[in-house]
């Protein structure tokens, strides 16, 4: 029997009435990659936060390396060799990689010495684990994948033997995710222990040795990855069979609802992000835009929804033009039946400091239903929020709870409920299921298809190829700001992957 790196015995943690963790027992074997899966709000992040000293368990015992440990703060965790990579990075943007790595772990009052020492240590870590990053690069100029490597380096620099990663691939492109997994395998070969939380069951199958499933605060099963299947895991998580691919009938495409012609958009630095794009979305169809993140999809969505100014081109909604000069008011577009689920729910789609019910009217706060003269109609707003909570199974079902305290998947449902329940003619959705569990993915996909079947025009942008393929009636592939191809939903992943990498595009240019 291999030695346990971490043992958790009878861990309990409640937030008010919410029992986030109940009697959790878990053993993580040294030198393995241990996956943890579970629905949104199952308590995964809470459990890891207890292990990392952000929260204290109400009761229960933690053993690290066989010895009982008292972890009161993250510093205690670091001293015990536990490192954590957060979903939202905790880096100083305008510091260099090196400065970020030594931040808080300076070994000497004079920075110069610490820096020299850190540089050689970083070199060693890079060689050993394939964690290539330029130590002098400024963090904000690095792509997300590399920023994440800096987070890992930070943990290793502090001597982490056990590395916790909470949904590390949510923000990564497929290639970046592959690279991350190579790094994790190397860490394992060197005897480190990795705990990986993810919603992507494929990743669990590909990289973990053992996988534990949580449901509603309890640990329901631990399996050897080799001996389980995606279907079994999904069922364990949700407690019922889950359709990993939602069934849908033929699309009955009708009139053109949204038409985009020769649209060009530049970002704030003046770089052309959307380059002369044209396409249409008809009533009763779902058009999916596939592409590696950062190829102009975000800017495209923002321009259509009136948040970002376009340089040239035109967008028609129901045959009438949208003002693209930047004077366009997203509120007016909502009145005209265009609903938008933005990619970045934390900063754009929600105000995290608001109560849930306050967010459930964001953007629709002008609607007479929610107002009494200049005053908010608090009762109507809360009743309405409670309806949506029931209909979309948002948990916990408390419309007075601060939005930041909902789990990621439930936050996404808050946004989706708000936008879908307005019964819009056109729905544009960015990354509909980022950070969302399989059960909720099924739910969201069903809803989107139901919208389509009611004759709405739906435009979906996602970096998840699986999602694009199972939802879309037509797939447009974006690369470097252009649409490089249109395909049907039956197209293979391989073919789409090549298009997304711009391969055919380059050949055509030759």
């Amino acid at each position, binding site marked *: 029997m291999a030695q346990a790196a971490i043992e958790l015995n009878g861990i309990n943690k409640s937030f008010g009435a919410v029992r986030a963790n109940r009697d959790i027992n878990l053993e993580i074997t040294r030198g393995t990659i241990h996956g943890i899966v579970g629905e949104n709000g199952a308590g995964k*992040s809470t459990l890891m936060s207890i292990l990392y000293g952000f929260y*204290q368990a109400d009761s229960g015992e933690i053993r690290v390396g066989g010895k009982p440990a008292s972890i009161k703060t993250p510093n205690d965790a670091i001293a015990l060799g536990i490192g954590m990579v957060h979903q939202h990075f905790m880096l100083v943007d305008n510091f260099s990689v090196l400065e970020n790595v030594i931040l808080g772990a300076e070994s000497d009052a004079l920075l110069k010495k610490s820096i020299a020492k850190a540089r050689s240590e970083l070199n060693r870590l890079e060689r050993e684990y394939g964690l290539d990053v330029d130590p002098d690069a400024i963090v904000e100029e690095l792509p997300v994948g590399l920023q994440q490597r800096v987070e890992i380096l930070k943990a290793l620099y502090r001597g982490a033997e056990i590395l916790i990663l909470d949904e590390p691939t949510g923000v990564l492109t497929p290639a970046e995710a592959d690279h991350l997994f190579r790094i994790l395998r190397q860490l394992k070969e060197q005897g480190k222990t990795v705990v990986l939380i993810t919603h992507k069951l494929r990743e669990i199958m590909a990289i973990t040795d053992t996988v534990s499933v949580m449901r509603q605060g309890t640990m329901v099963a631990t399996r050897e990855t080799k001996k389980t299947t995606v279907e079994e895991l999904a069922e364990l998580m949700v407690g019922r069979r889950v359709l990993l691919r939602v069934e849908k009938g033929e699309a009955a495409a009708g009139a053109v609802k949204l038409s985009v012609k020769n649209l060009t958009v530049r970002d704030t630095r003046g770089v052309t992000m959307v380059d002369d794009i044209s396409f249409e979305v008809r009533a009763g169809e779902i058009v999916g835009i596939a592409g590696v993140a950062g190829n102009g999809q975000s800017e495209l969505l923002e321009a259509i929804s009136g948040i970002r100014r376009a340089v040239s081109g035109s967008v028609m909604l129901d045959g009438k033009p949208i003002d693209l000069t930047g004077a366009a008011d997203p509120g007016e577009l909502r009145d005209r039946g265009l609903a938008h689920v933005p990619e970045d729910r934390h*900063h754009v789609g929600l105000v995290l400091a608001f109560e849930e019910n306050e967010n459930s009217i964001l*953007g629709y*706060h002008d609607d007479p239903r929610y107002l009494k003269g*200049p005053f*908010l109609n608090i009762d109507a707003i809360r009743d309405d929020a409670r309806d949506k909570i029931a209909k979309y199974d948002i948990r916990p079902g408390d419309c*007075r709870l*601060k939005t*930041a305290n909902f789990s990621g998947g439930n936050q996404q449902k808050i946004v989706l409920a708000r936008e879908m329940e307005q019964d819009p003619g056109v729905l544009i959705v960015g990354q509909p299921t980022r950070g969302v569990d399989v059960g909720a993915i099924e739910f969201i996909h069903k809803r989107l298809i139901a919208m389509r079947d009611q004759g709405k025009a739906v435009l979906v942008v996602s970096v998840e190829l699986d999602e694009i393929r199972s939802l879309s009636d037509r797939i447009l592939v974006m690369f470097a700001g252009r649409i490089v191809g249109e395909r049907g939903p039956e197209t293979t992943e391989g073919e789409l992957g090549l298009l997304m990498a711009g391969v055919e595009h380059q050949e055509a240019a030759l």
Partner: protein
Amino acid sequence: MSTPYAKLPAWADYGLIPLINLLVAFIVAGFVVVLVGENPFRAAIILVEGAFGKGTGIAFTLFYATTFIFTGLSVAVAAHCGLFNIGTEGQAYIAGLGIAIVCLSFDTVLPWWLTFPLAIAASALVGALWALIPAYLQAKRGSHIVITTIMFNFIAASIMVYLLVGPLKPAASQAPQTRNFLAGAELPKLNWIIELFGAKIRSAPLNVTFLLALVMAFLVWLLIWRTRLGYEMRTYGHSPKAARYAGISETRIIITAMMISGALAGMMALNPVMGDQHNVAIDFVSGAGFVGIAVALMGRLHPIGIVLAAILFGMLYQGGAELAFEMPAISRDMIVIIQGLVILFAGALEHMFRPYVQALFASFNPRSVGMEAVKEKGA
């Protein structure tokens, strides 16, 4: 991961922590008193007795508090919209001009209860207009509101000095101030309220503006948490991106919030000008705008907190004056030091003791920590 350190129950958050901060400020101030060779306990007693011991003291304390309620509310309204209005001082000062015009024109013909509403409107209007320019520059040109409002404080001061030594000064007078208002622009005192409780009052400037301040505190609460405009302001204050997404015009919301903030600042001028001095004199604001920043921070941007913090600062002003009088070793400047310490601990170092309190709570009862302060401020 939302917050690294979970929140405390509301009563500890809003009651216990400010109290600890205050206590520490007084302890440190006590050491300063020891340094100048006085007895800190006697000093504390004089301070508190000076502020609350006699009817006159209470009236003075509330008079000062009135001023700070207005400036605190002004700072808070802007802060809810994510704007740091440092121009409260100048907005209040220049509003004295509006009041002067109304009072000098009507004090001979109208009774006070007709002059007062006109003066309220004038002070609010002038204060709002003075905030409009920095707001416009922020919204349209991106000039930082902190810088522009500071500059506008200087401009306001220069204009007022020019007017008070020139056009507004009676020809025969030597003093840089307007002529004294007549009865038609003198606000009734409220001292009788305190006398109801049996206290004796010699003469104190507490006047009806105190009631106006309380009404404004309620209206600000209503505005921020119960109106659509307040909702839009809070949205923008928390996340400009979310506001853009929600179709809230950046220009409109910045300008509206700053004008409301400026109007509240302007109304502050009513208290000393119409309630006490009965003229507009040079430097009648004397730093109340800046105290408003501390009051707003200490009151955690909530009107109830602001009223309480304003009373605290009123006490420091009134009790401090008594202290300087009773203990010759403690000069006026010492009082400023004590006030500074309160601002330092209660405002700037607000979070210094929070982790310890949290650890303490956690060791008592792990469940209470992490319990969200579900009832977010007043909503």
